[in-house]
């Protein structure tokens, strides 16, 4: 029997994580997903954070998916869609000088 209802999953990649320097989230596999979406929620923030989607063929070696940066510079929630990825995803974050933030980062996959 074929099940036509789409699959979806939400992973909380960072949970109230305090950041003061550049970092990347842990590798996350979404081999089954046709599309994905990052949500970054800044609970506290006193400067800019710039995010880029990174992809990997093996979970070990990474490259940017595109040239797009996603900036958040005040408490709140931003999101961006991801498509055309290999099965590993992560997000790299550049933290501005002297900036401190507290983040939740979600990755949603849909197949």
């Amino acid at each position, binding site marked *: 029997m074929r099940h036509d209802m789409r699959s979806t*999953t939400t992973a909380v990649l960072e*949970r109230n994580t305090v950041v003061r320097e550049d970092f990347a989230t842990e590798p996350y596999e*979404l*081999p089954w997903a046709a599309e994905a979406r990052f949500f970054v929620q800044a609970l506290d923030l006193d400067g800019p954070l710039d995010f880029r989607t990174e992809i990997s063929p093996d979970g070990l070696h990474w490259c940017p998916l595109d040239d797009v940066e996603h900036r958040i510079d005040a408490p709140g929630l931003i999101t961006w869609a991801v498509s055309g990825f290999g099965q590993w995803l992560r997000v790299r974050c550049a933290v501005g000088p002297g900036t401190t933030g507290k983040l939740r980062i979600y990755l949603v996959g849909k197949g």
Partner: protein
Amino acid sequence: MNVNETALSKYNPLSRVLCFDRFDSTTHGWTELLGNYDGRGDLDTVDDHMRDFRPPQLSSCTFFDVGTHGTLSGNYALKLATRPYPGHTATGIRRLTMAGRGRVRIETHFAFKAEATVGHEAPASVPWDGNRHPSESQFGAFTVATDICSDGGLRYHNVIRYQNTNLDGEMTNRWMYPVVPEPTPRDHQEGKFALPYAADFTAPDPDDWRTFGEPLEMCVNEVPTKINWHYLRWDIDTSTRSNVELQLNDRVMDMRDVPVPPYPDRYGTLDNLLNFYFSVRTHCGVRNFLFLDSVLISVDW
């Protein structure tokens, strides 16, 4: 009989199947474990050692050297992956309740590995080769455990752990069990524990673990990207709150003498709790992975 109907044939369930989770569809209720927090949703109030157990993921078991490996019976496994941080633990927990008391059986086909290291060298206690690979000693331990509460708030955990290496990274290959109950957020509130990040949440003091059975060498298979599926069957009895038997591939171990320490105090709001979790813990700064092809939980009530 078509191939889908043969899926059960790799298992040996008791009379009633509670769940048969094949990860070619979804994560089937296996989710990340998180400690408790306050009424405002303030996750800063989660205990440090229980706030970062990492979300399970569906994996096609793909590696840098051979590409996609796949699973025992399909494309996707449930994968638990630690951070590359000594002591870090990843979990997948399944939350049920009990409609009776008696024998409970959890079965799985699983594989375990340390993450491949490419282009640099990670600390390891075994040399290469002679059929050995340094990654063999970069895997810490995996645990299968329960969280059960019954009979007027009596809470206990049946726990088995396969310790591949000790905290010094030396090969041990032992089955273990804890002689104390797991520290809880309530214990923390009552001032009994305050554990740091990456503490062993099942039983933090290494001296509170005992071995059972003889050392058991698993099929590591030489490099970090060759995975082989192991069969595990574990029986407990919730009518006697005891362990019964553990089977790993062709080895069966009687566990009736392995104690299950209950909490001294009663717990409320947990009536008939029947939780299972798998966890994987790294003892060095290398990610450790536990792959589950599928999981079957059955009972005799």
